[in-house]
């Protein structure tokens, strides 16, 4: 057994023991496992490396934290409830259009930010109550939101994994729109219709209406939606007319939206609302900090290299299988990490095929990484927005859609040149 293998087994073993057996939070387990890995490799306790690794997630954590605060504000102000109400009343008679609308609605923030978590926590959280009230089981709703968020993050105009993969081979992010639409839209509609349609064929509005709760829209009117509209305009503006629009960054935009939200609906205590939001995401923040340390130690000790070489050294016939499994599996650590560490070498391995189509398909595979525990960001937050404690129940429902997605991506790679000729 190579030293890297020993270190990997120590890290994995201690992680499993402390997370599953000792029931420690995943973040703490990851830090313990990283420290053990470093000790096994004879690096002592490399404090600098452990802290440095976590910095990779500083900006993502800011986005998640501010998105969460924004959503709590919308919930408290009454905007969240009113949006579900509107969706149900306006669209309950046209189930197919309802699902298509909801799918695009959920995907939207992902398409313009490239972030699956921002998607689940914003439009996912907005749509969830309505979908549940329409009669879709909560777990299915969570699965639909998680899948839509992933397709949203991969769909154009913004797809960060594709940019990372392209950046690794100096390929500019140009001409990805059609291949990415092809990679995501058929799947997004197909998955959501197949999961949701049977539950909303006949909706009895009279039965649902009493459950909808107080209508804040009557009291506050259009004002209720101003924070959401401001956030959408600020996010879209910088994408559509970047020359004239200030680039504020997603965290700042969410903070602006939150502050406006304080004055556009029910009164609330901003500090308490924000603290509740932070408390809810604290385990995820912990996971990201821990993952950062974990990857840094894997890289330092050569475990990362061993895993990459391992997945590249499978025979040709297995290469597709290994891509379809290893890229999402590595996403267990981080989808962006997977794009950089595995996405780039795989793209290099397929040089000569239409690189834009291959890159698009690889980015779709990395997106699936957001379903892979322990990070499973899309799954964890989707479970959270429907109030489910055990996110594995959500992940179970996403297994078949995820397999279909992986196959779709692999077919795209196999037929890359053919697709490239008309996309």
């Amino acid at each position, binding site marked *: 057994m*190579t030293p*890297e293998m020993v270190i990997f087994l120590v890290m994995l073993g201690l992680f499993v023991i402390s997370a599953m057996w000792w029931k420690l939070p995943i973040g703490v387990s990851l830090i313990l496992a990283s420290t053990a890995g470093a000790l096994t*490799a004879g690096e002592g306790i490399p*404090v*600098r*490396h*452990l*802290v*440095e*690794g*976590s*910095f*990779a997630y500083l*900006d993502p954590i800011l986005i998640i934290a501010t998105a969460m605060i924004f959503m709590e504000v919308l919930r408290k102000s009454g905007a969240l409830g009113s949006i579900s109400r509107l969706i149900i009343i306006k669209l309950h008679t046209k189930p197919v259009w309802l699902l298509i609308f909801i799918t695009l609605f959920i995907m939207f923030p992902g398409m313009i*930010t*490239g972030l699956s978590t921002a998607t689940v926590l914003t439009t996912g959280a907005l749509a969830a109550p309505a979908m549940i009230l329409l009669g879709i089981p909560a777990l299915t709703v969570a699965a639909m939101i998680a899948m839509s968020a992933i397709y949203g993050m991969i769909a154009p105009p*913004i797809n*960060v994994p594709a*940019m*990372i993969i392209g*950046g*690794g*081979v*100096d390929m*500019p*992010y*140009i001409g990805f729109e059609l291949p990415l639409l092809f990679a995501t839209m058929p799947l997004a509609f197909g998955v959501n219709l197949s999961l949701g349609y049977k539950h909303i064929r006949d909706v009895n509005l009279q039965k649902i209406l009493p459950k909808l709760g107080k209508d804040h829209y009557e009291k506050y009117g259009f004002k209720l939606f101003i924070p959401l509209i401001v956030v959408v305009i600020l996010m879209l503006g*910088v*994408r559509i007319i*970047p*020359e004239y629009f200030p*680039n504020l*960054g*997603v*965290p700042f935009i969410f903070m602006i939206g939150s502050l406006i939200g304080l004055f556009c609906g029910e009164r609330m205590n901003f500090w308490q609302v924000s603290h509740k939001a932070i408390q809810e995401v604290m385990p995820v923040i912990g996971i990201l900090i821990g993952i*950062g340390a974990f*990857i*840094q*130690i*894997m*890289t*330092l*000790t*050569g475990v990362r*290299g*061993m895993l*990459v*070489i391992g997945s*590249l*050294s499978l025979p040709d016939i297995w290469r597709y299988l290994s891509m379809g499994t290893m890229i999402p599996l590595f996403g267990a650590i981080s989808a962006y*990490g997977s794009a*950089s*560490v595995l996405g*780039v*070498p795989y793209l*290099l*391995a397929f*040089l000569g095929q239409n690189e834009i189509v291959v890159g698009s398909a690889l980015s779709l595979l990395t997106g699936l990484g957001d379903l892979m525990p322990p990070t499973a960001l899309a799954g964890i937050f989707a479970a959270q927005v429907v109030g489910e404690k055990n996110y594995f129940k959500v992940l179970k429902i996403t297994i078949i859609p995820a397999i279909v997605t992986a196959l779709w991506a692999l077919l795209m790679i196999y037929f890359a040149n053919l697709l490239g000729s008309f996309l």
Partner: protein
Amino acid sequence: MVQKYKYNQIKIKNIEFMFGVFTLIVSLMIGMIAADKFQEMHETETLYPSYALTEISHLSDYNPNLKNTNGNTEIYFFNSDSAGGTVLILGGTHPNEPAGFLTACLILENLQIKRGRLIIIPRANNSAFTHNDPQEGQPQYYTIEGIKRERIFRFGSRITNSIDQWPDPEIYLHYPSGQKLAGNETRNLNRAYPGRADGNLTEQMAYGIIELINKKNVDLAFDLHEAAPEYPVVNAIVASERSQLIATEAAMELQFEDLIYSMEPSPYNFHGLSHREWQDYTQAMPILLETANPIQGRLRGKTDVSLLLTGRDPMYLKAAELGELHVPYDSAGISIEVRVGRHLSAIKTIIDVYSNIYPDKAVEIINVPDYEEIVSKGIEEYF
């Protein structure tokens, strides 16, 4: 009973509070240890220029906005007594590519100049020398036991330090082309050209370099890099339309010395790169040189100073067997001598070819070793 319940409540609250304080103290200690390590990186290594040095100026002389920022950096001028052309050598565009930086340092500390003028910027992105990339697990320093003195050099990051330029946009829009790249590329000097005088710090550096090239009438400009061995453009000379001819001729001459280079044209549709924008915004002939550097590759194994200096790595050996690499690779690795040596020979050959084609703009440097010399004597001989 009520009394006791309350007492327990208070006790539990106290324990929670005390544990909170305890965890904060633990975090503070960890944070302080790390902070100490991070701050050490701001100490600049001393360089010892050769006697041929005539002037040291700063990038802020070409873009005053850089004054008192970490983006400012020294520019070393070596003027000869006889008229000729001007050559610029940029090291440290990417401080995680040590052969580029060391080549510039080695020339700076050893050269004598007979004709024309040489300008060297060893730390083109000074800010990027002050930190390391998260999750790369790379060393902060490496030591070369030079014959004159022991030298400790910093191994930095590919991009500007976040503390000097933050936050990154989600998407980096290159100025002026509007090309989109991943957000953190906004801190990559070699995606920032031609830059802006008042843009972000990295754009300011790029602008300063363009200004220097134009104001000092640089004829031939080198940007020294390294790349991962699995990257297609490696052991390469990248040349733009203007520099294609001399680069091709030099590559043929280098082939006689058994130094194989691939010739890569500067892509028209990829903006922000030095060779692309130096072609379009200056009169200089741009040349970018790449060697193969395992410590920045994604397939590498254990990441340490030994890998940095020897380039020896069992994982890359496997990758070579799998046919994943674009350079020859065996158990000997790709040592820092090989990488610096390739840069030195390429620079010397290209300057010679240039001087032959444009005799009135000739530049002649001596006392700089070539590939053969540095590989046989070791890099220590020159520091």
